[in-house]
């Protein structure tokens, strides 16, 4: 598990405020979960817009022209950085 939540401009998608554009920089999950995420479009380097992120709710994101619902447990494994 990656322990640091904030590292300069890096964070987890669960910590990303609503209406923020970020880019995926790491996925800390097992092979099957990583494959599932990749197949749905979440691979390293993918730009993501967080549409809605409220405590205890799943996270709503848009990527590659579609909206996805991301459970918090899964979202906590996705590391992102500012979309520079």
């Amino acid at each position: 598990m990656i322990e640091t939540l904030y590292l300069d401009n890096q964070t987890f998608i669960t910590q990303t405020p609503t209406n923020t554009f970020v880019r995926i920089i790491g996925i800390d999950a097992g092979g099957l979960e990583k494959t599932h995420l990749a197949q749905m479009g979440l691979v390293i380097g993918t730009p993501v817009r967080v549409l809605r992120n409220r405590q205890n709710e799943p996270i709503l994101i848009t990527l590659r022209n579609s909206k996805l619902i991301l459970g918090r447990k899964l979202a906590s494994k996705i590391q992102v950085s500012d979309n520079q």
Partner: protein
Amino acid sequence: MKSCCKNPEVSDSKGKTVALVGNPNVGKTLIFNHLTGTSQRVANFPGVTVTSVIGEMHSDVEKFQIIDLPGSYGLASTKKEEPVTSKYILENHIDLIINIVDVTRIERNLLLTIQLMELGIPMIIVLTRYDKLPDFDTNILKRVLNLPVLPINATKGRSLNTLTLELERIERSPDRLSTSPKKLEFGELRNVLDKLYSVQRDQEEEHNSKHPEKVVMGHIFGVPGFENTPEWMKNLLNKEGIQKVDDLRLDLISQMYEFIESNLLITPEAYQESELESLADKILLDGKTGIPIFFIVMTLVFWVTFFISAPITNLLDSLLINFGEWVRNIVSNELMASFLADGVIGGIGFVMVFLPQIAILFLFLAVLDHSGYMSRVIFVMDRYLNRLNISGRSLAPMLLGFGCNVPAVLSTSNIPDENERITVALVNPFLPCSARFPVFVVFAAAVFGKYAAFAVASMYFIGILIAIFMMLVLRKTVLPGESTSLLLELNELSMPPLKTVLYQSFRQIRKFIEGAASWMGMGILFIWLLSITGPSGYIGPSALGSSSGIKSTWIYFLGNLLEPLFAPFHWDARLITALLFGFVAKEIVVGSLGIIFGTRGSDALITQIGLNFTPVIAYSYMLFVLIYVPCLGTYFALRREVGSKWANLSIVFGILIAWIVAFITTIIGGMIFG
């Protein structure tokens, strides 16, 4: 038309096999129905409950066997539906793939396209929802992928005709069915893939097989049947600096997306949602508004379902009763008349009781699903269900359970996690279906007077508590697992296409009739046999008509035999006999009690029960009916969805839990009321 077949192989006729493959919700079913019309049959894939449909398209010279495969995001197996599609494509001969791509979500849809292109199967691309993005330039796709691209609007028949014409053109130039799609460039991975295909090809020459790409892709994407990576493949990957097949798979998906981004020039926000949709989402995704709206919607669904289905059910019921009576009158042999009237027509009539409400419930569920509403419900309910170690996806089957457990159990096939799916199906019979309501009402009215409504409400409360308790126990013990990590597409909110909704409901209704209903009919016939015969031999159909007659039947004999088991609750053989009937259908409990007590009408039965039983006996009996066994219809739905082992266990545990709860109620009731 052929009925369902165990092996989904297409028929042995000479027609070309065409597979429809695409992401979920891209309009595949509409295209399939346009191409095949009514010549369809359900294909049951061995080992799983996901069904697909095979149909035929006839033209002047050729027959196409068209198979509609379940929606899939890619070849990798990450949930229940996907292995079916990948497995079918990899293990069967397919002449042509029609890859259906939603143009508004084209970037993610093309991942599957590119994976399919690797398999070497001739392919055409059909772009749906083209009307939403009419400026989309299809030439880029045609040029880069070197495949025919047909933009269509799946809801318009005229637009769909272009696909029919294309298939007819393909048929006239057979060389098009021998042209494999070109292999795309994924940097260094192209070389790795080509080397793998080459070694596999050499190996296959020994076995006279012709599909190196299918086998290699099967291993890379971990498709069931291809999970064990051969040693030569591991060694070759190591030489190329790739540690594991998992790494190659993830690299390949990344490279495929990169290819799409750099070569197919998709702009990031090509499709914009409307302001109305954005506002609707603000309301539906917010717990404070979304949850109350959801409960209102579900209440309306149940109310309308029963409001519409009740008169249809009654009409069908009376038609069949009259038909049965007519048959009874014209058939001179008393036994044959009873067999036809009580057994065959009665059996069909029993199925008819379920059918209208099941059909309407499935129709509503399809509307909610295809309008994009269900994914919003999953979003708002997910956090509450996570506490029970289940995900938002399990909500719909549980709510349906309050209407009828049969469609509820059948609808669990949409839950991707196997353990979660079995859990939700197994606890479903604890949720009181509408058929148990008359039993509760009759007993509560008989002994609880003005508190009757509370007694009935308590059944719902206790049923839900037991379901939650069992869910927690099962998820912590034999069916462990955390709630499935939620990763779901939030589809656009829209009016669902009527044809899709009707087709989907029709398929599910047919699945119900072909599966559970045929067994239910046999169950009814068995009970009928037990009710016209007894330990003394043949009694005849008159046994069902009088309280003394029924006492000489096998059913009553069994009730008597089982009486000691229920002795702690002070129930007599009459109540136990009705429980045996209740296994066929909970609706029959009240009716059979009426026959046993020799009463006409529910008021007389309520009076009789009030005179014969104490509140403690009545309440323990209500609880037992709530819990004891799923009805025959639910039992066969369970068998179909989770297998006979779990279905049988649900009966054993149902009876055990019901007995314990009734026992505790008797003890506590005895202490309170003396």
